[in-house]
């Protein structure tokens, strides 16, 4: 996997306990077109506190271009921003 750290737009549901579950997200390609990716499975979720900045890292799996790909999403709690971290 390679680090991308691209900001993304996403649809997420939160549990009563406040745990986010990404459902789908869309990413803008270089030719300004949007690409929607549905998250089929969340494999792991872990918290990161680097530099005191809390972030949640989701390792997910989806079908992209006919291939089952594993990728990581990052949620920055402080700013409520979602990123495509690694793919």
């Amino acid at each position, binding site marked *: 996997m390679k*680090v*991308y*750290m691209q900001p993304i737009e996403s649809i997420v549901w939160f549990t009563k306990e406040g745990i986010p579950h990404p459902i789908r997200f869309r990413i803008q390609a270089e030719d300004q077109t949007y690409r929607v990716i549905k998250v089929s499975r969340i494999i792991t979720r872990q918290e*990161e*506190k*680097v*530099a*005191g*900045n809390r*972030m949640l890292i989701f390792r997910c799996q989806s079908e992209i271009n006919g291939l089952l790909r594993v990728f990581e999403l990052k949620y920055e709690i402080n700013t409520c921003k979602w*990123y495509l*971290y690694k793919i």
Partner: protein
Amino acid sequence: MTKRIIMHIDVNSAYLSWEAAYRLQQGSSLDLRTIPSAVGGNPETRHGIILAKSIPAKKYKIQTGEALFAARLKCPHLVIVPPNYTLYRQCSQALKVVLENYSPLIQQYSIDEFFLDYTGMEKVLGDPLSKAYEIKERIKNELGFTVNIGISCNKLLAKMGSELEKPDKVHTLFPEEIPVKMWPLPVEELFGVGRATSRKLRDRGIRTIGEIAAQEPGYLKRFLKNYGILLWNYANGREDSPVRLSGTIPIKGLGNSTTIPFDVEDQRTAHLVLLSLAETVGMRLRQANLCAGLVAVSLKTNEFLCFSHQRKLYLPTDCTSAIHQVACELFDELWQGEPIRHLGLRVAELCSSDFFQSSLFEKDTEKQRRLDKAVDAIRLRYGSHAVFRSVFLHSGLKALSGGVLESEEYPMMSSIL
């Protein structure tokens, strides 16, 4: 009493490490710590000095506090990043949260330094040395920056210990290790020996900490006064201040200063800068529930000459306007018309603002105090720039100045252990 165990936790090149860790988290592929890099102020507003540097930058003999221009001469490919005080504050807070797992008694000594009282904790958590390694590793893994930890039986030795060899190390400096680990070091390494004291010591042929320790205390006292005795005790590892919780050191004075982006050449602008400083000082004074009995003004000219002037007040005050008025009077007496680079305002002789002696011959300040209180409340709720004086409109000056973070106290260095 059982022997105390104190740890001193010190972040390695704090500002730079924090910035580097943050950038890595944000997806940067470059670790600033591995290249010659530095955190530096903005040269356009004349804050262009090196605040922190990476270890590779140290090899180019770049020093903290030197001008960015001078640093670039030494190392042309030096990467300079701007400071981000909110981030530092956040990192410092996260570090504190980790440390709180290891002892209930923690003192934040500065933004990047903590004392941790481990006395008695060995019964719960085990051997301090292995715990120190655990703390160090945990901070590295969780927070992404490295620390040095010094362990000893008092704060001074713990602090000296954490400064022995960097980065990412744990050192012990117990009294029996002093002759080997501390005495061979040059005098400048001793806590409390700065430029002035080091010169006095070196003029008398005292070059190492061991040589201070070996001196007759009376001899040191002759030229350093009581401070000589303190240094002699420090050199011998004797120091017994407690690990204090924050806010337990009484405030003796309070001040703010600012380097102005341009040279001030007229009285009106200088008075405005003083007002913006008075706003900050006054706010901090009222927040601490104190009144000041003395106001001091300092200025630095474009040729780096410094002047200062102070005056006692008849009546202690915490009013922004009253402080500003005295500051302006002092400034007018002090200023000879030179272009001004830096202005400072300080208050001292503090007393509680709850009760103080009032005077029949002074202006009634009750109304003014109510106004200040209202302004403070608005700023607290809606931000420090929610309300400001109209004289600052289109003046090109900040309505509040001094300090690095607005509306928040930022822990600075201290000489009191």
